[in-house]
């Protein structure tokens, strides 16, 4: 039986990623996106290993992670819901949608549900200004969202992705 620690496993995964995506500075973004997709966060250890493999400094990776909203140091939920807060969506009554989201999930914007399933965030314009209010669930766009739809979306999330997929213990 393979008795690798979690850190060792992460390191070998990162080594494979770097092997595939390259050691250029420009490889950093795709590597970080892969890590974020898989672990819902980019941990301290992952940052230091990536920096080491790319021969750059951990603080530079930290700067990139902190710059982009879609990369996170703290663990995010399996489903990240990002509601557009820019002008058009705001005028299309985004506030009602926001209230509904908070009520249904029981959290405020910027928070993650205690079970680690959902994270609620605001996003700036996602380019759906003619179809607001708009929101993103992970990579999926929902437009002309009404408070009624919010509930369906959340239920849909739980069903589509399957309970088993969201009940794994949080890694790292």
């Amino acid at each position, binding site marked *: 039986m393979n008795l690798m620690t979690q850190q060792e496993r992460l390191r070998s995964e990162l080594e494979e990623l770097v092997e595939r995506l390259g050691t250029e500075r420009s490889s950093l973004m795709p590597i970080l996106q892969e890590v974020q997709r898989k672990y819902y966060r980019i941990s301290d250890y992952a940052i230091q290993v990536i920096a080491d493999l790319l021969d*750059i*400094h*951990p*603080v*530079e990776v*930290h*700067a990139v992670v*902190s*710059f982009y909203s879609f990369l996170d140091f703290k663990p995010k939920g399996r489903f990240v819901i990002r509601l557009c807060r820019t002008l058009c969506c705001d005028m299309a009554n985004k506030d009602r949608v926001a209230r509904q989201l908070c009520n249904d999930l029981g959290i405020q914007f910027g928070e993650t549900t205690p079970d680690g399933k959902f994270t609620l965030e605001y996003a700036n314009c996602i380019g759906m200004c003619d179809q607001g209010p708009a929101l993103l669930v992970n990579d999926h766009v929902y437009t002309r969202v009404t408070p009624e739809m919010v509930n369906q979306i959340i239920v849909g999330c739980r069903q589509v992705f399957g309970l088993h997929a969201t009940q794994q213990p949080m890694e790292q």
Partner: protein
Amino acid sequence: MSEKSIFENISRAPTSQRASEIEAGPKGAIGGTVSVTIDGEKMKVPLGTTILEACREMGVHIPTLCHHEDLCIAGVCRMCLVEVEGMRTLQASCAYPITAPISIRTHTAKVRRARRHIIDLMLKYHYGECYACGRNNNCELQSLAKEYGVDYFRFGHPEKPMYEIDRSSHSVVRDMNKCVLCRRCVRTCIDLQEVGVLEAIHRGEKTIISTYLNKPLGKVVCINCGQCINRCPTGALRANDPTDEVWAAIDDPSKHVIIQTAPSPRAGIGECFGLEPGTPMTYQMNTALRRCGFDKVFDTNFTADLTIIEEGSELLIRLYKALVEKDESVALPQFTSCSPGWVKYLEHFYPEMIPNLSTAKSPQQMFGAVIKTYYAKMHNIDPKNIVTVALMPCSAKKFECNRPEMCDSGFKDVDYGLTTRELGKMISEAGIDLPAMPKSDFDDPFGTATGSGVIFGATGGVMESALRTVIELVVGCKVEDLFDHADIMPVRGFDGIRYVELKIDNVGPVPSIVSHLVPNWDWLKGATLKVAVAHGTANAKKVLDDIKAGGKFSECHFIEFMACPGGCLGGGGQPIPTTPEIRAKRAEAIYAEDSACEVRKSHENPAILQIYNEFLMEGPCGHLSHKLLHTSYTARGKYIS
């Protein structure tokens, strides 16, 4: 139809941007010249010159903040905005290369208002009052505020500090309340030094300069070189200042306070008193130090000479083992260990190469150990009542003297590391006008120093001193026979990495000082001594990577590394500002002091011969010198826990 007119007809670019208007430049120049009109005055500049450079050439002053001659262009502070005719917005002149004829206005109402607003906005987030700041009167933000007549805070001013001051490092104090986000420290640390302590974290108005995960500076991989301090425009980064403790020791009558002064501060301290860079202040400083109340003033150059003997002997032992005894475990090339920033860099980034590092301590630490043993015994003073202060151009020396292993005398070998700037402050505080001081010499018994010790302050200096001694000890001839006036020019200069080969054609008899180490020199006859010099840790990294890859530097025998660009004279404790020009002037002062010295070779220093006769009787690299003058290193690695 000629080629030119075809081009004119088909070009759709605006007339001002047509390539045909760019004339061929002087022979040898890349590209041509282009005409530029600055405030109505016309001039021609080489293609690609920035507006800032063009303005400076014409004598037009453009205010800058994030721009620094040692660093790459950032264009973040926007102080240098100018109006470019035909462009809607103001342009940052430092980051605008001129590629087509343009017309620029440097002080229109729009420009003046924008600059003033930028200063006002920076002051909105700049906490602190100038009179309670170490950079008072030497602050770029302060001078800009003065230049633009700031007399009130248009956008407000913080009333409370927003961040806690980070005092966790022995060397560098970080006060983010004063940071104006110019990112000079970021570019210094990543580009110039390749250490990567600081970066701009988050974005937009939340941006802050931070260490990795905002950990305290003492916990991250920092080599304490202090280059960021030298380039910080405000007081956000400064050295850890022990002057209060030093004054307390001076004021305590039971303490015997000794100061040793390194070669670089004397070439730089004049700048603290308004003198031109490169005005040597060696002997005036000695008087000033005595008037401040130091009991003895010694020259660190004495132990620089001692370092040459110890480090040189160590090199000979390594070479003998490798070449004669064919011992393959011997680590070559040998690296110098005088620069504490460099030592810590190696411990962090290349711990596997620690065996290559000379075990000889730096001159500062050697002096501390010698004072609290040899000198204490000679003058019958209890070493516990001796306080040794080291005047250094360096912030990393503060870390070095606090290393736990640096207590070989039984006490803390060096109690306080003082930078040039801090001594400047102490001298002013004592009401002394340094340039007006009468000259006086160093105190005995270490008074006599050689030119070899002095040039430790410049990059290549350690190598030059070592070569002077090695040539005379091994070849048996005078250095002057090989190099004019014993100036070994190939190792001098400011090229980042220098490589020199020296063929040993003849060998002489083994001199008595090293006769216990080798039986003869025959094994070196016909050999080629390969040495290299690197300064700035980014250059050190290149050399180390080359060694790891088995390149030409892996065949070297001896390599001098200095953490700071320019060597110690560009150290993190030297007066601010620093530019390549200022460093070159300080180097001139150092080399001038060397050529004025009577004795210019370490092994001819009578005080050195005396200490080997009276105290370190087993000779260089003997038992006692191993105990007092050599040290060990810690493999630190670069993982930040």
